[in-house]
């Protein structure tokens, strides 16, 4: 008998925060709102730590907790309201509550001067509720509930500044693009119900494992539909377009939802359903190709962006591509590992960028920054840690996870091309991150010191934010440095703890996990690959240093020399315009002309108009009968009596 872990409490804690702040937060003082908003995520994080301790003391995983049995029961189909805890969930719980709590703390400082403070925090808590539901769920249906919920909160928070047109539109775009993915997820669930009669992870995967002959066919269909859902949520080609626009939301939202947690839900789902994907080599190949293509594609766009948050948005898309690549080559634990390290350093990058934006009073254009190294020392040093981490430089977190993914794709059958793309992307990543670093913190200041300064308290110069903003930065900075050590590969003298930790889930699903005792040749290869990735990253750094610090005119020259390429990338490959012309335009035209003018105005409104015209026409005739003239009434009476007489005398016989 294992002790209860009370998993039900975990999502309810942030939900309580949401309810309190959402209902009465408007009338409460800010201090109370932030206390509530921090207390409940902190409690959730504490519970996760307690669960970790319990697991450490021997609670058997996977651990299942069911509440409503059945939750839904329809003619032979059952779905339980149940939570599942295993190693994968545990990693996700730590990331979601841990990073989530840090970002909540940061937000207290960042959002201090904003209207709708209570609204912001109630949404943030609601997000944690849905995200925890998503990662804890033990079946596809409950996962879908969380999946939709985080999409809803994402919409609400992207459009947080709802009076701004661009923010409202970005929210709608994110919601609609995600809807396409959700449609795939729904269809996949229908197919799973049709073939397995259940949505429980355990039963579906056991069923697949019990039938080794199942291969491809409908499993490929399910896998591809799930993949469509994942590309929507995790912003991969072809559904990535919403994420850059999502940067309209407040910066902590970008950090939490659009970098660290929600967008990784797609990767989590791929890892969760790995048994299913393992039976469909086609789907896996497509995942790997999509991942590599997205990583490269987004990285190239990131090179030329000038909005600091958009650089990070494209970088997020690119890093998510790495995770997809890892899942595609069945290196799921590497994908999850990268998810974790990415959560650390990308959250940090966004928070540091937020700190810069905060200090400059809302300025997001990197062309108007520069020279902030001395003014914002804490931001500068933590940002440096994050930049080194994302660029994959030893011994920062990103090095281990990215290198593990690259090594896994190199080892995968036919994976050399994927590896090459990943490697080039690593170079690009390093280049654009250092570009951001140089443009923001080095060179001469390009902002006006006198007029810049944040919000309410006038122009007393550019300075760091309050402690509530700096502490999360420092913690995440340390994690960006050390977070990767949990996956120190055996080939480099570590013990690759995370891979072993996740082994119970992914063992048997992966064909690239290194053997317990790697051969000398494998160690050699791993070291060479690590060396190559380091060299590429350093080259990117060197190039950025050359173009954005030592010889700034080089960047302009390069733009002049490759005009066509520059224009192409500057316009983000015109993807938004192409989608606009091919999909949005025709849909809008169809809606306006056929649905709007034809059906709405013509048939629905037309039917109403016809009815009113008929009624008013008929009544204008009938109204004349009621003249008030007694003798006309008498006449009608007599005529009526005569008519009755006629009917009775002559017509009654004929019936």
């Amino acid at each position, binding site marked *: 008998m294992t002790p209860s872990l009370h998993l039900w409490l975990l999502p309810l804690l942030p939900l309580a925060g949401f309810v309190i702040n959402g209902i009465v937060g408007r009338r409460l003082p800010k201090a109370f709102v932030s206390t509530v908003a921090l207390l409940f995520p902190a409690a959730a994080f504490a519970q996760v730590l307690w669960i970790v301790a319990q697991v450490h003391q021997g609670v058997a995983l996977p651990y299942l907790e069911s509440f409503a049995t059945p939750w839904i029961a329809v003619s032979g189909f059952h779905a339980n309201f149940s939570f599942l805890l295993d190693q994968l969930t545990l990693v996700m719980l730590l990331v979601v509550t841990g990073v989530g709590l840090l970002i909540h703390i940061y937000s207290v400082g960042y959002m201090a001067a904003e209207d709708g403070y209570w609204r912001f925090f109630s949404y943030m808590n609601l997000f944690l509720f849905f995200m925890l539901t998503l990662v804890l769920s033990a079946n596809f249906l409950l996962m879908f509930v969380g999946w939709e919920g985080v999409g809803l909160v994402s919409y609400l928070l992207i459009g947080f500044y709802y009076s701004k047109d661009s923010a409202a539109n970005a929210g709608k775009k994110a919601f609609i693009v995600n809807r396409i993915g959700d449609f795939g997820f729904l269809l996949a669930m229908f197919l799973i119900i049709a073939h397995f009669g259940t949505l429980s992870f355990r039963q579906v995967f056991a069923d697949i494992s019990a039938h080794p002959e199942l291969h491809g066919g409908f499993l490929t269909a399910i896998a591809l539909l799930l993949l469509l859902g994942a590309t929507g949520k995790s912003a991969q080609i072809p559904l990535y377009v919403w994420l850059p626009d999502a940067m309209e939301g407040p910066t902590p939202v970008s950090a939490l939802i659009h970098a660290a947690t929600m967008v990784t839900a797609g990767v989590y789902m791929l890892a969760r359903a790995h048994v299913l994907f393992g039976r469909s080599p086609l789907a896996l190949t497509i995942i790997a190709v999509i991942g590599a293509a997205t990583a490269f594609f987004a990285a190239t766009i990131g090179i030329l962006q000038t909005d600091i948050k958009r650089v990070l948005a494209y970088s997020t898309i690119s890093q998510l591509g790495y995770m997809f690549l890892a899942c595609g080559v069945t290196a799921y634990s590497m994908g999850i590992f990268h998810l974790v390290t990415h959560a650390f350093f990308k959250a940090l990058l966004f928070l540091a960028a937020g700190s810069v934006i905060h200090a400059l009073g809302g300025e997001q254009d990197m062309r108007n920054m520069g020279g902030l190294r001395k003014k914002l020392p804490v931001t500068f040093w933590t940002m440096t840690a994050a930049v080194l981490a994302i660029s994959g430089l030893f011994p920062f977190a990103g090095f281990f996870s990215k290198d593990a993914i690259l090594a896994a794709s190199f080892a995968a059958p036919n994976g050399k091309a994927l590896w090459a793309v990943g490697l080039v992307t690593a170079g690009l990543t390093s280049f654009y991150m250092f570009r951001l670093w140089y443009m923001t913190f080095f060179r001469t200041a390009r902002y006006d010191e006198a007029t810049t300064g944040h919000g309410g308290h006038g122009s007393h110069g550019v300075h760091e934010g309050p402690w509530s903003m700096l502490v999360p930065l420092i913690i995440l900075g340390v994690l960006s440095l050390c977070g990767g050590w949990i996956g120190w590969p055996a080939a480099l003298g570590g013990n690759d703890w995370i891979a072993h930790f996740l082994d119970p889930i992914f063992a048997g699903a992966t064909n690239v996990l290194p053997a317990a005792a790697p051969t000398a040749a494998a160690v050699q290869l791993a070291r060479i690959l690590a060396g190559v990735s380091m060299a590429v990253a350093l080259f990117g750094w060197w190039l950025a240093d050359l173009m954005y610090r030592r010889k700034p005119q080089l960047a302009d020259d390069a733009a002049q020399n490759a005009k066509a390429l520059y224009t192409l990338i500057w316009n983000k490959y015109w993807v938004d315009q192409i989608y606009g012309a091919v999909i949005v335009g025709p849909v809008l035209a169809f809606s306006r002309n056929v649905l709007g003018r034809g059906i709405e105005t013509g048939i629905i409104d037309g039917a109403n108009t016809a009815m009113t015209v008929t009624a008013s026409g008929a009544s204008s005739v009938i109204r004349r009968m009621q*003249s*008030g*003239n*007694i*003798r006309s009434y*008498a*006449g009608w009476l*007599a005529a009526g009596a005569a008519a009755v007489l006629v009917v009775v005398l002559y017509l009654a016989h004929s019936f």
Partner: protein
Amino acid sequence: MTVPIVWYLILSAALFCIGVCGFLIKRNIITIFMSIELMLNAVNLSFVTFANHWHQVSGQIFVFFVMVVAAAEAAVGLAIIIALFRSRNTLNVDRIDLMKL
């Protein structure tokens, strides 16, 4: 010698038609009222006729009912007409078409 029933009925119908015509044509409300009384009495006549013809007393009883109701109606109706005359100073129904006082 008995008068055939048809004669009574023709007389009754004639009286009724005169009543209807008066009711439709006349403008004076008192005359209209009298026309109504005429129609009622035409009906009374046919009741009596049928009662006599079928040798049943119920027709006669109906007549008494009609006469009682007509008396009550005359009392109420005349009271209304007087009230109307006091407020409008006219008995012409064509000028009383406002559907309110």
